[in-house]
């Protein structure tokens, strides 16, 4: 067991995904089974091995010029949203009832 149900609840909260109680137990089992399959990479001697975050070796210093290009109209941007108000995106109260 790598993860307890409590761990899974903590991860879900961090990741902003609500989980039903029965899903927590399923997901805990699934995740533990998957993590078990990750074992091979923990068994390597990797001292002195550099990580590869970017697959194209040597690709570096990619930059653009500081030149304005047209973007979206306010109406185009807001048209995609579910809730808007006075040219803004509208969101519910950031603090929950408990005042967190």
């Amino acid at each position, binding site marked *: 067991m790598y993860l307890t149900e409590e761990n899974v609840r903590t991860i879900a909260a961090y990741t902003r995904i609500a989980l039903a109680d029965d899903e927590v137990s399923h997901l805990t089992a699934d995740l533990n089974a998957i993590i078990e399959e990750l074992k091979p990479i923990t068994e390597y001697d990797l001292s002195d091995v550099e990580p590869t975050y970017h697959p194209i070796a040597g690709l570096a210093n990619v930059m653009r010029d500081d030149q304005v290009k047209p973007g979206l109209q*306010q109406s185009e941007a807001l048209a995609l949203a579910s809730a808007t108000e006075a040219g803004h995106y509208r969101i519910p109260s950031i603090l929950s009832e408990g005042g967190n």
Partner: protein
Amino acid sequence: MKNLLAVLQDWEAVIGLEVHTELTSLNTKMFCSCPVAFGEEPNTLVCPVCLGLPGTLPMPNKAAIESILLAGMATNCSIEQRTMFYRKNYFYPDISSNYQITQGPVAFCMRGWLDLHVTGKAALEREDRLGTSELPKACASEGYATRINITRIHMEEDAGKLIHVGGADGRITGASHSLVDYNRCGTPLIELVTEPDLRTPEEARLFLQSLRQIWLTLGISDCSMEEGSLRCDGNVSLRRRGEVEFGTKTELKNMNSFKNLHDGLAYEICRQADVLESGGCVLQETRHWEPASKHTTSMRVKETADDYRYVPDPNLAPFDLSDDFVASVRTQLPELPDEKRARYVDSFALPYADAVSLAGDVELAAFFDEGVKRPVPLSPPLSPSLAPQALKLANLLLNDVLAYLNASGLTLSKTKLTPQGLMELAQLIAEGTLSSKQGKEVFALMLESGEAPQKIVEQEGMQQVSDAQSLEAIALGILEQFPDKVSEYQAGKTGLLGLFVGQAMKATQGQGNPKLINETFVRLLEGG
């Protein structure tokens, strides 16, 4: 609660700052080609990239990278040529992709420092240091020097803005809902983090002021604390004098002016001392400075460190800047305030305090440098040293010009003054062609018309009488008029000199050169 100076007798404050600066001088955002601007209609400076629409990718702004390198060079940092962008993952509605692109363990600029010269009243918060370290010789005032180490300066993107609706004073507490504007989202932002090397609120204020002067000199930001393009958070803890271990720190936010930075830190130091002296514990928390009620309130208690799941951003190729690239940026480095100050003292013998003030104001300093570069050929010819004229020019800038700018709300470039014109005025005063009083009149007329001072002098017939022969004739006439007073003077009542000079000024209708008149009377009365 005890006051700050009393608290600092027993406690040492340990302060570190985090300074965020928006690179407002750039045309576009950090990772997209939207304009950087303040005060536009909400959500009008946005595109698929800065709105975090699905499928978009970031592309770094080269000018922003150049700017942060300049910032690092100007603050004595090592420039890290091999570095990367990371993602800082957290959910908050002002960051459109719910991760902020920032830097990891290696920032573009690492391990820098700034030296502070703390003088005058500001030095009183640290009595123990008075006179302990050397200040530049020219600095006559009492004080001390201290080096503040800079941990790093990293490149990141700013968040959007939230408006909280329905609560009191636009605060998040009690708001019924909030509104999001992404215009600012993605604005290039540099974050400077200091080591906990600051010991007093005055040092913190001075550090931020020095930093602001450097950023303005580099021209990378407008550094407006009011509009939020320069923002400062502070970490504060206390320890008993002589103690080595750090105490528990609090993080202080909302110090959006130099005064608020000082007063917020001062209050927090006193509050912590109060807590500790009454046997309590300082909680590790984020606190909010309330300038109106002059106290700090708790925003959030930190029980565990936040886990932001930092991870290298796979969309952004790493940086491996060439020596040539770094060298070409270094050639763009302008003369910095400290170098400027030293030059003003060395080349023009400006008083230290004036040199500091002038060097710290980019616009005034540029005006000064332009002025002394091109003195107008006048008759009689200039003295070999420019010092007297330069001093007069500095005085005009720091007194008359600054007063006018403050009163009018204008910037120097918006006035009718020119560097050459102001230098000409400085010369006319320094050489005695105009009295100080006449100088002020000419200055007022220059502001109105933009005319050159010599022309104004001619038009107004304001020439100061500096002809030694005619002044001597006038002086002799006056002495003849007041034989009694001459006897009294010669008997030791030298204060009567003022009477003679006053009479001579009257006779020349205010246009006599007071210095020369003075000298003439002294010579005549004391048997020259």
